[in-house]
């Protein structure tokens, strides 16, 4: 496949970086020079070849390192993966969805052989081979959701749909933008988004919920969200905030290009066939400012977006105190020329 899985870290010495190819395919989330919350849903259909939209579940050069990081987070805090008792079937649905997609789209790396309910799964990058009986939990080393999400990049939440709402009743959450699965599990769609400023008043969540409850099996959807993270830290959890919070006071004009990262969430939504639950993968992509600055269009646009962002949003996203340093750094790449519409760097 021509892709080498990198040996890199997301903590401690932070050796993570993006190769030039990974930079070019980065999912830059701003289609225009300003940003405000919107539902911004689109069909999750195959996108440009080579882009993160090409496959159902993108596997990139960070795959093996990210799975190693997930295992470390779970060893430190098992509460990052939880599933309420009625969500086991949805976990099987998710396992089937991911295994089928990966085996179909990345046949060199993943294989799935099915003989009735006797399944045989091979994950070559992680050197895993597993024979199990579909829908029989005793034949896997852990629950089905945990099993497959230990092998799939991105956080996952499984939403039960009942009483005209979505209930976050299961999840694997180790690369989150500062929210706690342990606290939020069991909440409905409005409750777990409750702390988000401005969006409730704009009816964003009412419209998003209406859209999501109507997502049909076989017709997935996607949208972007984003924030900023100092150092390539995947686990920006509230649980560990006392450990990573101090880094926010260490940003300087000299290190901002190297240490500040745009953190993009590619959120996708899949209706699951047996449980009727909604699978909600939240895939995190990180890119340091100096990597992003290699793409002139993105650097110009990011400068304008950050400069003009309401302080309330910058505060919620956790970078208000560092916004001046970030804007000053990005300004050097913005000569004021127009940017073309859309997020592709090459357009």
């Amino acid at each position, binding site marked *: 496949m021509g892709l080498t899985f990198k040996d890199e870290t997301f903590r401690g010495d932070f050796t993570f970086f993006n190769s030039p190819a990974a930079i070019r395919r980065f999912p830059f989330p701003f289609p225009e020079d300003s940003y405000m919350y919107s539902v911004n849903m689109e069909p999750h259909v195959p996108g440009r070849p080579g882009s993160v939209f090409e496959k159902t579940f993108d596997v990139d050069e960070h795959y093996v390192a990210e799975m190693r990081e997930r295992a470390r987070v779970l060893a430190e805090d098992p*509460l990052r993966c939880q599933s309420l008792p009625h969500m086991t079937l949805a976990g099987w649905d998710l396992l089937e969805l991911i295994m089928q997609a990966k085996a179909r789209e990345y046949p060199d790396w993943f294989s799935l052989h099915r003989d009735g309910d006797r399944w045989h799964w091979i994950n070559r990058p992680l050197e895993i081979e597993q024979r199990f009986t579909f829908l029989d939990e005793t034949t896997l080393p852990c629950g089905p959701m945990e099993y497959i999400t230990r092998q799939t990049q991105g956080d996952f939440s499984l939403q039960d749909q009942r*009483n*005209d*709402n979505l209930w976050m009743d299961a999840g694997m959450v180790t690369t989150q933008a500062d929210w*706690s699965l*342990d*606290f*939020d*599990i*069991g*909440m*409905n*769609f*409005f*409750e*777990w*988004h*409750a*702390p988000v400023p401005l969006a*409730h*008043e704009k*009816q964003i*969540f*009412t419209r998003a919920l209406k859209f999501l409850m109507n997502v049909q099996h076989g017709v997935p959807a996607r949208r972007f969200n984003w924030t900023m993270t100092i150092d390539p830290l995947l686990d920006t959890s*509230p*649980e*560990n*905030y*006392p450990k990573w*919070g*101090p880094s*926010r*006071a260490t940003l300087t004009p000299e290190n901002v290009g190297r240490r500040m990262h745009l953190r993009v969430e590619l959120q996708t939504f899949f209706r699951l066939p047996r449980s009727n639950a909604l699978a909600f993968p939240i895939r995190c992509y990180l890119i340091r400012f100096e990597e992003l600055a290699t793409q002139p269009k993105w650097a110009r646009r990011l400068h304008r977006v950050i400069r003009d962002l309401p302080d309330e949003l910058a505060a919620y996203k956790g970078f208000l*105190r560092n916004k001046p340093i970030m804007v000053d750094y990005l300004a050097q790449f913005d000569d004021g020329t127009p940017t073309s519409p859309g997020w592709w760097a090459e357009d």
Partner: protein
Amino acid sequence: MAGPDAFGEGIWAKKKPGAQTGAAGMTKTVFPPSIPSRPTYGVLAPRPGPAHLMIADGDGAGAVLDLVGAGDAGMAAGSHLIYLPGPDGTDRTAELAALGLARFHRAPSFAAALPRLRKVLGDAHMGVQIYLAGSEGLIGQAQREVMEAGLPHDAVQTEHRGTTVRRVQCVHCKGITENVATDPFTCGHCGLALFVRDHYSRRIAAFQGVNIDAEDPGLVPPPVEKFR
């Protein structure tokens, strides 16, 4: 844009308007508008049913007295009240004992009341009406028990009265500190200085506490008494 209310008290509250601000403990507490995960409470109103289960603490006694006073003559005969002193020490056992309910149990604490509550909820039949009144900690923990017992959420009404001290979970160490009166406060388990969010988990029956000086260790603003 409050989310659908899992316990339905918002619906029932509308049926009996007239909640007023007043001295703490005298009437329903009125909270300022907040985020959708923050619980809201109504006003207890008698509803027909074969059995009435009331759980209250402290000044929630006033809501129970009003409830029984508004009920029909037969309500007392079908009622079971579990009452405990409030987090601030308020204890109106004598007034409640004088109501003459079919069953009245005074417990020294919620933990002590729990085995009895679980038994009663497990034994409950269809149509039981459940009334919760008093502090947020009591209402939230009792609601959780009702939920786990699998009883229909529309059987439950809640009314907040009296102290507004909070039950708060430290998001870092997961320890729960009861009766938090100030913001920030010191986690009773790990000792971190926490600010109190309005974000609330029904499953944990607690508000969320987050380290206030994580980014600038040692810079803790003086505690302000926000909940009393």
